[in-house]
């Protein structure tokens, strides 16, 4: 189905972030480590248990999702933006690769980086907090699906963006609030009704809820719905990204 050129492009995307590992892999390990120390060790003992699990374990799925979503998004958006900015995207557009192949190679690169970050934070959780995974298959499925979805978002933003600002706007003004209102550090049952209702329409909440079910075996709401939303987002964003590349939206004149 896919040409040899497609796999070369995938290899290029993975090599790019591996080459920049200090910027692409280490930061999420360090920031997650800090979250674990501050929220887990310092505050965890005062909060006690939520839904029958220790607080430090309760927040781990949210931290993992943060480590997956941001890098997956940043990988694709910045890779495309850089290629546009320095005009070497033309080297790719003139090749026999289709729009679908180009967008999927970016998405796979972002997904690999997102999953790699997620696995590193899971390992950190294991070593620092003794985290045990309830369902390995489902955990990887969530990491993969959510990374794929946000790598797709990154492709769309990377295509659309005219400056680096646009890329950071999404991180700072969309992802960050959605994370903090997505039940990373608390159960939404602790929230007032208005914010609880708001969380219910926050897709990140459902993704964190799903991963919490996969890793800890607990869920505040429907795990099946979480799975459905994650898959729907992955398919929708990658389809839109591929469509935009195929049409040359904001890339071809």
């Amino acid at each position, binding site marked *: 189905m896919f040409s040899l050129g497609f796999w*070369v492009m995938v290899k*290029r995307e993975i090599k790019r972030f591996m080459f920049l590992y200090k910027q692409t892999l280490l930061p999420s390990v360090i920031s997650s480590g800090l979250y674990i120390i501050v929220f887990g060790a310092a505050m965890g003992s005062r909060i006690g248990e939520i839904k029958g699990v220790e607080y430090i374990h309760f927040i781990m799925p949210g931290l993992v999702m943060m480590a997956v979503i941001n890098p997956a998004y940043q990988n694709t958006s910045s890779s495309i933006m850089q290629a546009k900015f320095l005009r*070497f995207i033309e*080297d790719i*557009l003139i*090749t*026999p690769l289709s729009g679908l192949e180009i967008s999927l190679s970016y998405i796979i690169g972002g997904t690999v980086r997102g999953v790699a970050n997620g696995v590193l934070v899971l390992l950190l959780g294991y070593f620092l907090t003794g985290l045990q995974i309830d369902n390995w298959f489902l955990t990887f499925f969530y990491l993969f699906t959510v990374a794929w979805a946000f790598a797709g978002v990154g492709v769309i933003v990377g295509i659309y963006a005219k400056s680096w600002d646009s890329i950071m706007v999404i991180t700072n003004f969309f992802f960050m609030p959605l994370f903090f209102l997505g039940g990373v550090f608390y159960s939404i049952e602790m929230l007032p009704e208005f914010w609880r209702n708001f969380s219910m329409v926050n897709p990140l909440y459902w993704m964190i809820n799903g991963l919490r079910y996969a890793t800890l075996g607990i869920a505040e709401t429907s795990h099946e719905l979480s799975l459905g939303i994650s898959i729907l987002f992955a398919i929708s964003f990658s389809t839109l990204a591929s469509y935009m590349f195929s049409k*040359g939206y904001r890339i071809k004149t």
Partner: protein
Amino acid sequence: MKPAIEVKNLQKIYEGGLEALKGINLSIPQGSFYGLLGPNGAGKTTTIGIITGLVNITSGSATIMGHDSVKEFRQARKLIGLSPQELNFDVFFSIGELLELQAGYYGISNKEAKERTSVMLEQFGLTEKRNSRARELSGGMKRRVQIAKALVHDPQIVILDEPTAGVDIELRHMLWDYLRQINKEGKTILLTTHYIEEAEQLCETVSIINDGKIIVTDSPDNLTRSHGMSGLEITLTSEVTDLKLNPWTFNIIDGKIHVNIDHPEKEMAKVINQISEQGGGIENVRIFRSSLEDIFLKLTGKSLHDDEESIDIQEKTLIV
């Protein structure tokens, strides 16, 4: 045999309404060395962009060896190598890796890509720079890498947009020799250039494009013959009253006789004889001929390189 590149009624209207191409037609035979000349904004880069898939078509069609550039883009693009005017490099990789990746995008196996990369590095004198990043190279070396990228997958058609812009004379001549060689080996070359001499030296056929339209297509020789002027400029040692030169027409400008002749080398002796027979002493005879640049200026009303240095003077002087 199908043309290497065929463009039919190609129209391009950009967002905002700018009509960059107004229904142009081009047919570039396989194995030819073809020049596309035009002033800035004439539509050269848009035409190349459409052929290579960088620009969307508004209407009309472009085919590469019979493959539609949109519907059969995979087959079409495999046949083309493009060296854009603007230098563009993937900053994360060394020169060697860049070339290997570029070959790989065209479906060339890893082993063959490495071999082709070595050949290209050798050809362009870049072997020692294999592990360098593009930003570490001089302008001339960057241009070599740019052209090597266009050729690394061994395409049948090579499109070069201003390949010698800003390069030194040595590299320019090295590139000319190389382009002649690969053209001789069967590759079709489409060249855009600001240097008229480059087109005159290299191209068998030239199309002049202006304001989104192809004005004229012919060989450089035919263009200068059909649209230009040629003749003799003769300086006399003494004036001749009531001079007659049959069958030619002439003017006297600043005391020099300008005789209009299609083939001045052939007719020079006859003209000198007639002047001598009428008592004229000849001090100097110079052949003048319109250059392709003169033709370009005449047809478009614009100069190709107002801000560029001329690289040669297109005239021959003969001292008698």
